[in-house]
C-alpha cells in the first residue's frame, strides 16, 4: 500500500504545526521562493513549462502556458487568484492543503508572481471554509512578518501581497468568470467575457487563476527542476495527484499518489475497499459534475490522456464509492438537485433545463416515465451540455448521461409498463 503514496504536497501534513511558519521553514519551506528570486522570470516559467504541470482544478490547462499568457498580456495591474472555492461535492483536498500547510499555498503564489511580475493576489476561499480562512489569514500575516510577502520581499525590491476573499455560499463561483464577478462585488452569475481571464480577468485585467493544488505544486517544481518533477507520473500527466476518497469505503481520506495509479488501487489498496464485504455498485469520479462508472471500469488510470480516451474526466480529484445498496436513480436525483440548487440562473439551458431534468428523473423514480421521456431527457442533456454558458450547466448532466450509458436497465426497467408494452 505505502509504495502507492508519494508525499510531495502532503509531506508536511501532521509533521508541522500549520500555525507555525518556523515549522514550515525548518522543513525546507520558502527555499524555492529564495531560489526563484535569483532566477529570471522567464526561467521560472520555462521550468514550469518543462515540468508539464497541468492545472489541478479540473480543466488540466498547462500552467506554464497560462503564466506566459498572463505575462505577455497587455494591461495593468495584473492579478493572481488562487481558487479555493472548493465546492465540488466529494472534494476536500484544498481545505486540507490550506489547513495543514498554508505556507505552501503562499509560496506557490509568490513564485508565480515573481515570474509574471504581478503585484497583487487574492485567495478566494469559499464561505463555508471558516477554519481555512483563519489559518490562511494567520499564515499571510506570518509570511509578511518574515519578509516572504508584502513590500520588498527578502530585500529584493520585489513587492507582492495577497488578500483573502471570502465567498458567501455559491458553487458556481468556482467557475472562473463567476468567481471574478464575485470579487468585483456582484452576484456570482456566469458572465460572458470575450477572451480568457489571462487577457481579461479581474476588473478586465490579465489574471492568472489557478487551483490551490496547482499553486502548491509550484515550489516543488522549482525545488526539483522542471525535468526532475517531470519524472514523477506518466507521459501525459506529470507529478502527483491529491485524491479525495469518500463514500462507502473503509478508509476514506486524502491520498497523494503519482499519476498513473488506477482508481481501483486507490479504492482497494489505499481505501481498503467497501465495508462489510459489499460490492461496488458504482463510483463517481471528480465530484458531482463527474462521470459515474461501474466496477468493471475501475482499472482506468488517473491520467489525463487515459481518462480522455475513455471519455471520462477526473475533475479535481474526487472518488466517491457507492456500494450495492445504492439506488442509481436516487443518487442521480441527489446530484441533479445539487446543480439545481447551485445554478446561477443566468442562461436558459441550465436554469430551466435542470428544473425539467429533475421532473424527468422523478418520472423514472415514480415509474411513470415513457420512452418519449427517455429521448426527451437525452435531447435535453445534449442541449445543456452543448449550449450552457458555463461549465456548471455543461457538466451538470454528466452523471445522468454516464448512468444511461453504463446502467441503462435502471432507466428502462422503470419505464411505465403500460407504455413499454405498447412499444
Amino acid at each position, binding site marked *: 500500500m505505502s509504495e502507492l503514496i508519494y508525499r510531495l504536497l502532503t509531506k508536511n501534513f501532521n509533521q508541522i504545526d500549520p500555525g507555525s511558519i518556523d515549522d514550515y521553514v525548518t522543513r525546507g519551506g520558502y527555499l524555492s521562493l529564495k531560489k526563484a528570486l535569483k532566477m529570471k522570470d522567464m526561467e521560472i516559467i520555462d521550468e514550469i513549462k518543462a515540468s508539464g504541470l497541468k492545472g489541478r482544478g479540473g480543466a488540466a490547462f498547462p500552467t506554464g502556458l497560462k503564466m506566459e499568457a498572463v505575462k505577455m498580456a497587455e494591461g495593468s495591474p495584473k492579478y493572481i487568484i488562487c481558487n479555493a472555492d472548493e465546492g465540488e461535492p466529494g472534494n476536500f483536498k484544498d481545505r486540507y492543503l490550506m489547513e495543514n500547510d498554508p505556507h505552501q499555498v503562499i509560496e506557490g503564489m509568490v513564485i508565480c508572481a515573481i515570474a509574471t511580475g504581478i503585484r497583487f493576489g487574492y485567495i478566494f476561499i469559499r464561505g463555508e471554509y471558516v477554519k481555512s480562512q483563519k489559518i490562511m489569514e494567520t499564515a499571510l500575516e506570518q509570511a509578511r512578518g518574515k519578509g516572504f510577502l508584502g513590500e520588498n520581499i527578502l530585500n529584493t525590491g520585489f513587492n507582492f501581497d495577497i488578500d483573502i476573499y471570502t465567498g458567501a455560499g455559491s458553487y458556481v463561483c468556482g467557475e472562473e468568470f463567476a468567481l471574478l464577478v464575485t470579487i468585483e462585488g456582484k452576484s456570482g452569475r456566469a458572465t460572458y467575457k470575450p477572451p480568457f481571464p489571462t487577457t481579461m480577468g479581474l476588473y478586465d485585467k490579465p489574471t492568472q487563476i489557478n487551483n490551490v493544488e496547482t499553486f502548491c505544486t509550484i515550489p516543488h517544481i522549482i525545488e526539483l527542476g522542471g525535468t526532475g518533477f517531470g519524472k514523477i507520473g506518466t507521459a501525459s500527466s506529470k507529478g502527483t495527484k491529491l485524491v479525495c476518497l469518500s463514500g462507502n469505503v473503509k478508509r476514506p481520506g486524502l491520498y497523494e499518489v503519482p499519476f498513473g495509479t488506477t482508481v481501483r488501487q486507490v479504492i482497494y489498496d489505499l481505501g481498503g475497499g467497501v465495508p462489510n464485504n459489499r460490492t461496488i455498485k458504482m463510483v463517481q469520479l471528480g465530484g458531482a459534475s463527474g462521470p459515474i462508472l461501474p466496477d468493471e471500469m475501475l482499472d482506468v488510470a488517473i491520467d489525463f490522456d487515459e481518462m480522455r480516451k475513455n471519455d471520462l474526466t477526473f475533475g479535481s480529484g474526487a472518488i466517491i464509492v457507492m456500494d450495492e445498496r445504492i439506488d442509481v436513480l436516487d443518487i442521480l436525483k441527489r446530484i441533479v438537485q445539487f446543480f439545481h440548487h447551485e445554478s446561477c440562473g443566468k442562461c436558459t439551458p441550465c436554469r430551466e433545463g435542470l428544473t425539467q431534468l429533475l421532473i424527468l428523473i422523478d418520472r423514472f423514480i415514480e415509474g411513470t416515465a415513457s420512452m418519449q421521456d427517455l429521448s426527451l431527457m437525452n435531447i435535453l442533456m445534449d442541449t445543456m451540455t452543448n449550449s450552457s*454558458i458555463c461549465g456548471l450547466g455543461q457538466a451538470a448532466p454528466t452523471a445522468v448521461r454516464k448512468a444511461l450509458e453504463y446502467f441503462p436497465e435502471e432507466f428502462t426497467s422503470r419505464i411505465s409498463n403500460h407504455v413499454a408494452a405498447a412499444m
Partner: protein
Amino acid sequence: MNMVNLTINNRAVSVPEGTSILHAAKETGITIPNLCYHPDQEVKANCRVCVVEVEGAKTLQAACATSVKEGMVVRTNTKKVRDSRKVVIELLLANHDMNCPSCSKNNHCGLQEIAANLGVRESRFQNVLEEQEIDTSSPSIVRNQNKCIKCGRCIQMCNQVQGLAILDYIGRSDSAQVKPAFGWYLADVACVACGQCSVVCPVAAITEKEDIEQVWEAINNPNKTVVVQTAPAVRVSLGEEFGMEPGEIVTGKLVASLRTLGFDKIFDTDFTADLTIIEEGHELLQRIQEGGTLPMLTSCSPGWINFIEQYYPELLAHVSSCKSPQQMFGALAKGYYAQKIGVDPQDIFSVSIMPCTAKKFEADRDEMSVDGENPDVDVVLTTRELAKMLRQAGVDFNKLEEEEYDAPFGLSTGAAVIFGATGGVMEAALRTVYEVVTGKTLESLDFKAVRGLEGIKEAEVDLDGTIVKVAVAHSLSNARKVMELIKSGKAEYAFIEIMCCPGGCIGGGGQPFGGTDELRLKRIEATYRADTELPIRKSHENPAIKKLYEEFLGEPLGEISHHLLHTHYHSRKH
C-alpha cells in the same frame, strides 16, 4: 481595417476583425435567431438561442458573443444547432404564460416569432410556471413576471442607459427573477416610468399600461366631445407599425386615421410646443434679466421630471415652471376650447397620442387639472396603443389619404416638430430667443451643435454681444452627470434641455418596438426633414399662437398663462 475570412454554411465571407458571428452571418443573408442580444447593449449571451457550430469547438458557441477568426468554419443550421435551439425555446415556453392570442405582444413577440420560425408546435416539457401577481401599480407600465424570459435587456437599459438600476436579478437558479429590490411594486420604487424597459423587452414581461378601452368608450359616448392631440415624435414612427421604413413622415395619414377612428377634433401637440417656446423663452429671459435661478432646465419630459423630483429635488428651482406641451394642451382644451365651442369642460374628453409612457403618469398628476377635479388630459395613448386601436378598427393605414389638423390647435411650426428629437427644444428656443432679444432675423435656423446622439451637447449663442452657453442631455445617465455638474457649481450654462429617453421623444418608451440607435437616427433625420418642409419654422411666427395671445392669454407669463400653462414640482425623494 483588418479583414477576416471565414466560411458560414460553406459560403466564404470576409468581415472586419472583431465582428461577431451573428453579424457575419447577416452579411451572408443568414439571420440567426436571438432573444437577449441587443445591438446597443453589452453582449449578455444568456438566452442561448443564437448558438452555432464552430469547427474545432467542443460545445456550440453563442453567435452574439463569439468573434470571427481567420479560417473559422461556422454552421448555423446543423441538426445539433436546430435541436438545441428548439429545446431552449421549449424550455422558455414551459416556464411562460402561453396565452399568446390574448397577449398584448401577440405578433410582436420575439419568443413567439422564433418559436414559429423554428417549427416549435408545443413544448415537450411540463409547464412549470408558478403564476405571480402582475404589477399594475404604475399608471405607465405593467410588469408581468409570468412572461419574463430573464434575458436581462431591461436591466441593462435601466442600469446603464438610464442609470437607475430599478431592476436586477433577484434570487438564483430557477427562482431568479427580474424585479425591483424586495419585489416592490413599481409605484413604490424610484422608477421614472420612462418605459425604456418595455421598448427593449422581447416579450410581454414589461409593457405600457393599455388604456385603449377608455378611449373607445368615450368615442362611443354621444355626450362626449373627444379631442385628440398628437405629439411631434409620433408622426415619424407610427408608420413603422404598418410596415413602413423607419423615418417615414406620416403626419397626414395620422390625422386621417384618427378621424377614421371617430375622434371629434384632431389637434396637434406641436401647437402647444410652439406655445411652450413662447412661455419658456420668456421665462428664460426673465430669469436672466432678474437674476433668477440658472441654469434653467426644460420641463417637457415627464420621465425627466420624475427623475429630478425623486433623485435631485434640491435642484427643482432650476426647472422651468412651464407645463409640458401635452399638459398645456390639456389645460387649453378644458380651460379655453370648451368655453370657445360652448361645451361643458366635463363633456370634453381629451386624449393624447404620445411616444411616451411617463406621459400617462404626468396626466395623472393632481396638479394637472384646471378645475382641480378632472384631469386635463383624460387618457394618454402611446404610439403603440394607437397602432393597436387602428388594427382593432381594421384601418388600412397605408391606404389612407392625407388630411389636415383641425383649427384652432392644428397650426404649428418646424420649431415644434423638432421637439421630438434631442436638442430640438433647445434649437426651437434659440430660434425664438435670439430674435426676441436681438430683434434681428436669424441667418441660419439650424443649430447643428445641439443635434445628434451624443450624450451631452453644448453650444454657445451670441445674443448681440452676450454669449449664452447652453447644453443638451438625453437619457438619465447623462442627466445625472449634468445634475452633478450643477451641484458642483461648474455648470456655466443659462439653459439646459434634458430629455429622459435616449434620442429624445422619438426614442420614447411608448414608441414602436425595436428601439436601437440606428432606428433612432432615422427618426431624428425624419424630424429635421419635417422641420424644413414646413413653411414656418419659428414658434413666435406661428399666427395661431399670436392669435391665442390676442384673444385669450394676453401676454407670455401673464396671469392666465400662470394659471393654465405653468405648474410647480415637489420633492418625491425616497
